[in-house]
């Protein structure tokens, strides 16, 4: 893992070069739409990262396996718990496996696309490297959010697919309908966007703080609340907590909505959540964008 880090720093020079060429393209009035040039830049990032990851192949493999083993242990824990109880807050074993698979989808996507960049951002603020990102003729948030893709984190994505294939047919009285097939991935993506918003907002605080070393810890402890069905937050402490994490920082929406949609679609008293999910996604995207821009105004380059 440390290896990859070193590789990242070493190759940064090369990366910067490609950024420039793509950026030059987007300035060219004869190029296509702006959207497509952004797509081009993104694809370059994706390819660069893949090349980099494949340079340290053994490291890549070990990274993949170790990130998968963590989720498998988690799965083992719940298998143990379900020995003693038929359900947790009305989630049966296989329904809960769908919930876990959803967690894995969201987490692996966030970790693959955004996590390394958010970590890098706080380092760039400290070293003054953010100057280079600000100078490029491209949206700064786009550039700092997507510069690196950690391919090894996608290992969990495939474990999640397997888990879904295993768990879904085992849910009692389950019938897959077409709208689920379309809505589930859509809501997983919305969940990823909400998580991204929380993360970039947290990372942006490093502009004020100078350095945010415990970013990952903080991120872990906050999102820890999202990994459980929202029904478990009950009682005099639980209900305010649930409302806080649904309406103020909507991280409970992230996994609960898509998982419920797929595993327990019949309970319509929760259908308002599906509508709220869209509102929450848009709200957190706009909110995080605002925080990011606001933080950027306070940015003062470090030395150089």
């Amino acid at each position, binding site marked *: 893992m440390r290896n990859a880090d070193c590789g990242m720093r070493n190759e940064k020079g090369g990366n910067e070069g490609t950024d420039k060429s793509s950026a030059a393209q987007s300035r060219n009035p004869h190029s296509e739409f702006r959207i497509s040039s952004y797509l081009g830049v993104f694809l370059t990032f994706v390819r660069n990262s893949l090349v980099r990851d494949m340079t340290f192949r053994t490291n890549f493999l070990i990274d993949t396996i*170790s990130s998968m083993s963590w989720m498998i*242990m988690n799965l083992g824990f719940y298998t143990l718990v379900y020995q*003693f109880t*038929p359900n*947790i807050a009305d989630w049966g074993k296989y329904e809960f496996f769908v919930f876990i698979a959803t967690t894995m989808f969201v987490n692996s996507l966030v970790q693959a696309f955004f996590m390394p960049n958010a970590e890098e951002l706080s380092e760039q603020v400290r070293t003054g490297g953010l100057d280079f990102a600000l100078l490029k003729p491209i949206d700064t948030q786009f550039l700092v959010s997507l510069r690196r893709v950690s391919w090894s984190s996608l290992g969990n994505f495939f474990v999640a697919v397997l888990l879904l294939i295993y768990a879904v047919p085992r849910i009692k009285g389950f019938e897959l309908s077409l709208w689920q097939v379309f809505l589930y991935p859509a809501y997983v993506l919305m969940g990823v966007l909400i998580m991204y918003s929380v993360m970039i907002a947290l990372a942006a605080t490093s502009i004020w703080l100078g350095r945010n*070393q*415990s970013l990952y810890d903080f991120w872990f*402890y906050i999102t820890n609340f999202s990994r459980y069905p929202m029904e478990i937050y009950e*009682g005099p402490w639980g209900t305010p907590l649930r409302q806080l994490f649904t309406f103020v920082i909507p991280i409970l929406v992230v996994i609960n909505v898509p998982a419920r949609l797929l595993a327990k679609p019949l309970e319509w008293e929760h259908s308002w959540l599906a509508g709220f999910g869209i509102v929450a996604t848009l709200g957190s995207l706009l909110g995080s964008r605002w925080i990011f821009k606001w933080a950027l105004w306070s940015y003062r380059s470090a030395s150089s």
Partner: protein
Amino acid sequence: MLARAQTWWTILKICVEERLVYRGDFALGTLMRFLPIVTQIFLWTAVFAAAGSGLIKGYTRNDVVAYYLLTMLARAFSSMPGLASGIARQVREGEIKKFLIQPIDLVTYLLLARVAHKFVYYLVAAGPFALVYYLCRSYFPGWPPAEVMAAFLLSLVLAFLLGFFLEATMGMIAFWFLEVSSLLFVYMLFTFFFSGHMFPLEILPEPWKTFVDFLPFKYMAYFPAAVFLGKVQGTELVHGLMIQTAWILGFIVLCRVSMQAGFNRYSGYGG
């Protein structure tokens, strides 16, 4: 003898001062580490509500919560962040040379630095720990009798020693493989799962339960907590403490032997 004691005392003092620099960050970090307990309380409340019976493998819901809180304390003693990776880094970067030249023993130095680290940690973490334990006092069954309390405190100290020598031995592997970070990650996962930090080990089904009994990990989190809660009593308790001590002695020897073997293998270049 006196000169040597003075050297160790100076090392200890320097390490304490070095540690105190980051006390604010420390206290906040410690308090944040209790957040997962909040979700665990809700999760287990839901599990017990659905399970119907108020007892799972001898644990009530309150026992489970108290168990998690106590394993946090045990882990505060037995976890050694950065110890093995620190040794690995020193081997990789050649810093280890200074222990070959200077009349300072590597393991003793690391142990003192760790004692200083832990000492400062407890000083700063005592506040957050006391606060959380006070808030959660209703989950505890009450103070255990004095002899159990003594055994609990002893098991915590032994957990510290076991954690130290186990992880130091892991670090010595770096003499053979330069890059051990992924190995250490696997070790970390193993400890997390099999030390009982994730759940009370009693809920494991049979082949696994015996398997875990033969590993040293359970003495780093499960055992002290179980002692406090009165799950281990009488001769079983004495045996437990003896096995814990045996593991420590075993790892002291293994750590020394692997260090010597590592030193014999090691070759340093440049300055």
